[in-house]
């Protein structure tokens, strides 16, 4: 059985990756929308995004939309690949019914 991904498996990070992976390539979500989808706080989301960014799984872009600062988050190709592999690992556990 393949190994799971401990970075992605943490509950909030799993939700972040699930959400970003649902978008098409090169699409990003604004921080506040991602926070609402993942149902967490600013601080918690920021911390987990930093972990994912360090792992190379997401890209964070800060820009101005008019006069308003905006933070947008996008899954990288390696982040998408890691998420897909982790989902395959979860499915494998369910199919085999065993522990990993």
């Amino acid at each position, binding site marked *: 059985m393949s*190994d*799971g*991904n*401990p970075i992605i*498996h943490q*509950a909030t990070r*799993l*939700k972040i990756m*699930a*959400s970003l992976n*649902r*978008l*098409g*390539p*090169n*699409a*990003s*979500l*604004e921080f506040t*929308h991602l926070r*609402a*989808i*993942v149902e967490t706080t600013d601080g918690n989301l920021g911390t987990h995004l930093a972990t994912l960014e360090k792992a190379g799984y997401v890209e964070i872009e800060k820009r101005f939309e008019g006069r308003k600062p905006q933070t947008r988050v996008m899954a990288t190709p390696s982040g998408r690949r890691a998420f897909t592999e982790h*989902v395959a690992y*979860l*499915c494998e*556990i*369910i199919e085999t*019914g*065993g*522990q*990993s």
Partner: protein
Amino acid sequence: MNLDRQDALTALADIERVERRTWETVFYGISGSILILWGTITTIGYAIGQAYPRLAGTAWPILQGVGFIAMPFLLRRRARGLTPTQMRLGWRLVFAQCALTAFGLLVVYVLGPFDGRHLDAFWALLFMLGYVLAGLWVGRIFIVFGIVVTVLTLAGFWYSGASFSAWMMVFNGGTLILAGLWLRHRGASL
């Protein structure tokens, strides 16, 4: 990692829920713009119908044409970054609206002629049926929205007297615009 079957099931359920919420958020952002477009068009149409009833028959096809031309552009602009599957659903909804319009034209042709008041109510009710049906796939909010506008349309049809077009301008066009603004506020741009 040390995960058992229950942990994996819980994680997959979380993923499924988040994916659904993400799609809803993105869809709200896109459909909000489309609702504002059609809200503006219907508001103008009903305003013309109220102020210049004789021009309404000419104005509506022109306004509808503008809407149908603008919608694909809007969809392309707002939906950049969707996956091909999501994009296909967006286009299916556009085609569904075309099919509803074609159906409506056939009904008017076969069962008509109708007077302006009946036509105004018919088209509004037909498109609200479309919202209710679309809501079965894309989110309950569209079902609620379709039912609310249907009730308001029927109330206006029976009780608004000579001000029916003005009633529809406010409660149909206005509700479409307000709902569109709300959806855009709730929804994400990509």
